[in-house]
Structures are given as C-alpha cells and as structure tokens.
C-alpha cells in the first residue's frame, strides 16, 4: 500500500483530537466514531514465535518467560542460530567396526559464532537439549522472598486482629445474633485456625554480611594490551541481564523472544475494532473496522500555485469505499461546534481536568451473571474514555464552502473494468463536480491562502466532511428493517504545499 510510505498530506481528526492519515484510523461501527491507535485499548491476543511461527498458549508463554523453546539467537549478533551437523570419530577408535557419530552444534551464519567457541558440548539430537544456565543466587533469593512474604503476611494478620479488636467496642448485628462462624468457634473455646502460610514460620533470615576486602584490579590490566573483539559490548551484555558477560567466551545462546498479536478495543463501547486471527501464519483479521473501509477517502488531485491573498483552485478526489450510496457535504470547520467548545473549556480550566475520565455504567454482561460465577479477575472492568484533547492544527487558508453537496455511488468492483457507459444522472452542480467514475468524484474548491503567512510556509486548509454512513449492523439482525442511516461528520486537514512569492 502506498499509504505506508506516502507523506501524510491528508489528515483526519480522530475523536481523541489527534491528526492521523486514514490508513491509521479505525471506525467503531457501534459508537459511529473514528478511533485511532492512541485512543483504543490495546490487548495482548496471542503469543507466537517469529522464527518458527509456532503458537504458544499464554500460560505456557508465562512459564517459559516469553521465550521460544526451540529457537535460539546468536548472543553476539542477535540473528537466528542454525543447527549444524558434524561427524566426529567413534567413541573407541580402536574398534574397527565403530561408525563415526553424528553430532550437532549451533552456528551463526552471520558472525560465525558457534556453540563450540564457548565450550557448550555438542548434542546428539538436533531438537535441542542445550544446557540451560541457572542464576547463581537462586537459593538465597528465594529464601529472601519467602522471608519477606512471611513478614508482610504477619503484619497483615496483626492489622486484621487490630481491626477486629476495634470492632468489638461496638455491638454489631452479627455479634448480637452470634451467627458468624468465628463467634461460634470462640464460644466453644476453639482457637482460630492460623493462616496456612503463617504456620510454616519462616526461619529468621540472616542479613547479608558486608566485607572489607573488595575485588581489586588485576595487575596485568596495566601491562597487558586488551583485545577489543574479546570484550562484549553493552548491548550484548544487556541481552542477558542475569549474567552480563564481560568477555565473549561467556556468551551463551539466547532463546528467541516471543511476539504478540494485539487486538484493539473501543474504549467507550468495549467492542473490538481490530482482532487478528489466532494462527500466526495468517495475516488476516477476524474483525477489522478500519476507517479506510467506512469513510470516504480524500486525495489531492492538483492545486494551483499558492500565493498569499490570491484565490487558488484545489481539486480533490473523493472515493466511497462502502457498498452504499453516500452524499458528501463540505462544511466549514466551525460546523462541529460541540467538539471545539469542549476543547476550549478543557483548555481554559486547569490542566488536571483535561484528562477527566467520563464515568460509564459497568458492562451489562458482568451484571447479568451472578458475581459468584464470575471470578473477579475474569470479568473485564469497563474502560473509560478520556476527554479529547484540543487539535493544535493551524489553518492557513480560507476555503470557499460550496453550497451544493454531491453523491458518491457505492463501490462496485466490477465497474473498475467497465469502460463503456459513463453516464451518471446525478444532478451535479457543474461548478462543483468536475469528473466522475464509478465510486469516485473529483470536486473543485476555491481556496485563498491567508496574507499572514510568510513565504515558504506550509499552507494548510481544513474543512468538515459530512457524509451519510449506512450502518450495516442493524440490518443483519432485523432483515426487514431499513438500514440505519446517519450523518457522520469528520474534520479533515490538508497540507497543500508551501506558499510561493507573488507572480509578478
């Protein structure tokens, strides 16, 4: 797609106030609003290994610390390691019948690092079984963690008991009726069952002991010249945070880090706007509500040389991507007052308020099901939407808003190849619509760059595009009902180029 490398000259204003090209926008069909990567909720969908394209369930990925079990990367240059086979002599060379053994080792095709360099023994099976290294402080650190856990737990217990004692001052309803299990237990003289974690009282841990003698510099550092290619770089060290090897002979192969597929969710209605397919081989989506499929696309055809104060002709091409006919009206930027007003009041008040979350009812899904059925971690907390920020784009040219609107026919893939009949009977205003073909139309607009601009400044024009959006969700549920139509407005900014000097 040309969109990826193209300069961003036509920008749409997302609901959150950011300017994005249409290829980076989503369109939520449920709220009928434009969303972008900044204002949707990102979620990790599935883990997979980039190299072997193997899917990994997230529980397994967690256990394996987000690393692929089979693929290894070179610790020196970070490219994938390949497994090489080699033959070595038989175990007992005296035996004439013995056949040479086959062994495998790891080898980097890029930098020629090999597992033999660092003394990793060759393996018999190609699938791995490469020795894993353990953190040398494992035992001590797990002791420390256990100890801290027990200390905090003890404190929590004490706090609970303290709270209990406090409560006793006042007679509560449950105390009166004596219904709680705790009260009964107390009455018959049983003590409270201690917390199972507290029972195994961690033995008091000895703190580390500081030493006076420290590691001195080796004497040969002053006389021996160093070989730079034997010392690792910072990047190589940081790849293995636990060991951070200083010399290259301590570099060990690293398991490939996994990648994820993300799904995106609209923050105000909790519907997915993009959801990839589970299979890592597939680049398709289960749900893809890209704005490119729903909102008319605008392209700049030509623009006359821009001179301050002089009107120039601007030709824009509009393309309707939907299966439904739409009517596009061009309006002045001020025709979206509710948004602009909102922006103003947020800018005027203190900056802390600008990000105020808009309160929302919890999802009906979690309400209908009983709380006991749903584990607290399983139920999704509803997202909240953040107030949009003010768009800072300055407009540098006046635009003559055409009085008429124009019709864009639905997209028809077959019409692309049909060169014959090109007679449309839309009552087009000939001053506005210059050219038509299937679902595309070119319109002419008059713009006048502002006289305040300096020579060489970027000229930006903005307008509101209002188009009729036909919502297709309702029709799928109730067949006989007419598809729901609505007027959707979106602000568009076009960067037309630099201001030229006067023509004289």
């Amino acid at each position: 797609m040309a969109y990826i490398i193209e300069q961003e000259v036509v920008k749409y204003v997302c609901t959150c106030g950011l300017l994005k090209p249409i290829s980076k926008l989503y369109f939520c069909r449920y709220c009928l609003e434009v969303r972008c990567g900044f204002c949707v909720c990102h979620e990790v969908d599935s883990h997979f290994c980039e190299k072997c394209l193997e899917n990994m369930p997230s529980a397994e990925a967690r256990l394996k610390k987000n690393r692929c079990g089979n693929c290894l990367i070179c610790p020196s240059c970070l490219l994938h390691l390949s497994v090489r086979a080699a033959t070595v002599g038989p175990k007992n060379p005296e035996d004439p019948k013995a056949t040479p053994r086959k062994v495998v080792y790891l080898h980097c095709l890029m930098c020629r690092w090999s597992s033999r360099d660092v003394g990793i023994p060759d393996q018999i099976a190609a699938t791995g079984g490469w020795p894993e290294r353990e953190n040398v402080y494992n035992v001590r650190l797990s002791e420390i963690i256990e100890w801290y856990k027990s200390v905090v737990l003890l404190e929590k217990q004490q706090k609970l008991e303290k709270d209990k004692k406090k409560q006793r001052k006042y007679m509560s309803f449950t105390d009166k009726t004596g219904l709680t299990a705790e009260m009964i237990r107390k009455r018959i003289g049983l003590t409270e069952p201690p917390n199972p974690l507290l029972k195994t009282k961690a033995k008091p841990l000895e703190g580390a002991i500081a030493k006076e003698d420290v590691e001195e510099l080796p004497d040969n550092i002053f006389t021996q010249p160093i070989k730079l290619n034997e010392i690792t770089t910072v990047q190589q060290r940081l790849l293995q945070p636990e060991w951070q090897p200083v010399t290259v002979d301590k570099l060990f192969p690293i398991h490939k880090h996994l990648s994820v597929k993300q799904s995106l969710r609209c923050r105000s209605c909790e519907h997915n706007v993009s959801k990839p397919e589970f299979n890592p081989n597939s680049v398709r989506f289960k749900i893809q509500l890209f704005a490119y499929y729903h909102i008319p696309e605008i392209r700049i055809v030509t623009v006359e040389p821009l001179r301050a104060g002089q009107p120039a002709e601007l030709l824009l091409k509009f393309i309707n991507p939907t299966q439904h006919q739409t009517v596009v009206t061009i309006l002045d930027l001020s025709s979206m007052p509710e948004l602009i007003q909102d922006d103003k009041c947020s800018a005027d008040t203190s900056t802390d308020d600008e990000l105020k979350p808009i309160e929302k009812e919890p999802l009906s899904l979690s309400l209908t099901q009983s709380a006991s059925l749903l584990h607290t971690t399983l139920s999704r907390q509803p997202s909240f939407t953040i107030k949009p920020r003010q768009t800072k784009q300055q407009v540098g040219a006046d635009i003559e808003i055409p009085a008429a609107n124009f019709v864009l026919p639905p997209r028809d893939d077959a019409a692309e190849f049909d060169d014959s009949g090109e007679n449309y009977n839309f009552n087009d205003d000939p001053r506005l619509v210059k050219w038509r073909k299937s679902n595309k139309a070119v319109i002419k607009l008059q713009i006048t760059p502002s006289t305040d601009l300096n020579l060489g400044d970027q000229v930006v024009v903005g307008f509101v595009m209002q188009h009729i959006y036909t919502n297709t969700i309702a029709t799928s549920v109730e067949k006989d009902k007419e598809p729901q139509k609505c007027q959707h407005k979106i602000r568009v900014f076009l960067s037309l180029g630099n201001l030229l000097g006067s023509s004289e």
Partner: protein
Amino acid sequence: MPIYEGYGTITDKLTFIIDIGAAYTKIGFSAEFAPRAIVASEVRCKNTNQVRNIYDYKDKEDLYDLLVEFIHLLYFKYALISPKDRAVVIVESLLCPTLFRETLAKVLFYHYEVASLLVVPSHLVSLATLAIDTGLVLDIGYTEAVAIPICHGSPVLHAWQALPLGSQAIHSHVKTLLSADNTGIQNISESVLEDIKEDIKVRCCFVTKRERAEKLRSVSSDIAPCPSVVYPLGGTKSLNVSGKLREMMYEIFFDEDLDHLCISTMILNVIASVDVESRTLLAENIVLIGGTCMAPGFKARLKAELYRQLKNERYSKFKNIKTIKFHTPPAKENYTAWLGAAIYGATEIVSMKALSKDQYFKEKRLPDWWSNLKDVVRSI
C-alpha cells in the same frame, strides 16, 4: 481479556515491575530474580524519526506522549501482557521530579488503566536484596550520584547527598580527553561520537589506583600508562584510545571540587549528617547500586579513597570508624534496585499499600512516597 490467557493454571497475580532509569529501563515480573529486559529509555518519534530519551521532555504534554509511547513498547514488545487491570510497581529515585512521577501515574492510570500502582524508593528497596535494614546506599546512575542512608528500614532523607557525577559526566569527559589527545575526533560526526562514547567507556576504560593516577598526572611520570587501544570506527577508520585516557577516565569521580566534593567525600558527608550511633554502622554497610558502579576497579578505588579521606583533618571526628565495608548484592549493580522491587512485588504489600485506581481518581494525584510506605517499611 482474551480467552487464550490461561486462567486457572497459574493463579498467582503477575505484578509488573518497572524501573525507569535515565539511560536504561529495567522491566520484569515480581518474584523473579532478574529483569526480563534492560532497554534504553528512549523512543523513536514517529513524525520526525528521531530517537528521543524520555527525560528530554519539553513540557507535561510532551512527556505524557513520550511515556505513552514508551510504556506501550515495554508492555507489548518486552513484557507481552495486557496492561489493563494489573498491578504495577514503579521504582523511583527519591529525587524524582514531581512532574515526572505525576505524569507517569497519569499515563498508567488513564491511558493504560492499571489496577493499582505501588511506587517504591530505589535506595530503600535495594536493601531488600540483602535482607538488611540499615545501610548507606550510593546510586551512581546516568545523570547523577545520589547517596541516601537507610536506618532501620527508613530513609534518612535529610542526610542525602547528590552530585552530577554519572555516566553522562564520563561521556562528556571522553570527548574532552579524546580531543585533547588530538585523535582527529573533530572529523567524526556528532552522532557517531554519541554512539561510541559509551562503548569506549565500557570496553576500554577502568578505574585505576590512586598512586598511579597521581603519578600519571604529574609531568615527569616514571610509570608507563597501560597499553593504548586502537578502536575501530566504521570499518576503514580507527581511533587511538590512549592508555592514559583509559586509566584517567574515572578520575573525575575522585577529584575534589572547590567545596571538597567528590564521590568519597559525599559518602563521608552523609555519614557526618546522621546521628553518632549510626555512623559506624553505616560505614560498615555501604551498598553500591547503579550501572556506573560496574566499572572494573571502582569498588577497590572507592575503598582506598574513603580510607585516605578519613585520615584528613576534616573527618577527624570519625575516630570510631575503623573499617569500611561493602555489601555485594546477589545481582548486578545495574538492576539491584529492580530486584529489590521484585521482592517487594512478590509480597502482600502490593495489595495492602498500593494506590488503587479508585483512590487515584478520587485524589487525582500520586501521594508522596513517605505517606505511602513509611509504616510498612519500618516493620520490615
């Protein structure tokens, strides 16, 4: 939450631990012994295609956008978990600007909708890795060196000392020394130089001994500096890193300025400003954290410098301090603070003391670290 996330098999909650440093950010999960990744604290700006450090922010809005970008990277490239409704532990320096921590909290709560946030001070949690409660923690990071004593589990903040001595100072010193050596560094473009400064420091330089440094500095030195290194530059060129540069690089840490301030006197000043009973204890429990402390020979030199300074008349009141002892945390210095936070994150402190989403929206601000932690920590 996606259905593929395995609930039931692993029930314990995963707490995400982030330590955003000035140069490198350490991330990982609670109860693990090493960070999952150590990544440079920078993001590539999408519009200008420039790499920007997240501390180079212009204003609040700019920082918000930088952090959104950066934390997205941390979650979806390195940690591979959904940020929503999960607890986060942030390691921060006690001297962290309010603007930064407030904005960070805002990004995490508003943009990423985390369930709760626990902010722990880096100096304090570093002691957790040693299971001790008293010690003098010296953090030498990228921009500054900060020493704060911790007495019985509570940071003694009034005794803090900080100096702008860190990797950044070293890096600018590399440039000065290289141009003084006339190695033709003027012909090397600024961007290339930025990349190699850290590499030269890490791979070639070390902290030399005091006697050698003094001799090398005098004009008529009778000792030869260590062998010089030819540092390759882009395949065809090379840079001669002299032996003197290799040895003298870290001397700026130990050169006293006009106020007699350097790394060693900083430690002694910290000791001087705590009560008399704690002084010996602190001198015998020095903990070094931060990546810059990993320079070869640094600890040995610091020890020698401390002993030398103790003989000085200014510190004559420290008669009782006979020995100076250093701790060796069960981790590399550059992620010791992270490890401490991972230990904290494994305990119930996260559920007891963390700031929850509801509380944050009510208060609209992040409480200062002491109001959040002081009572918990003391009991440990």
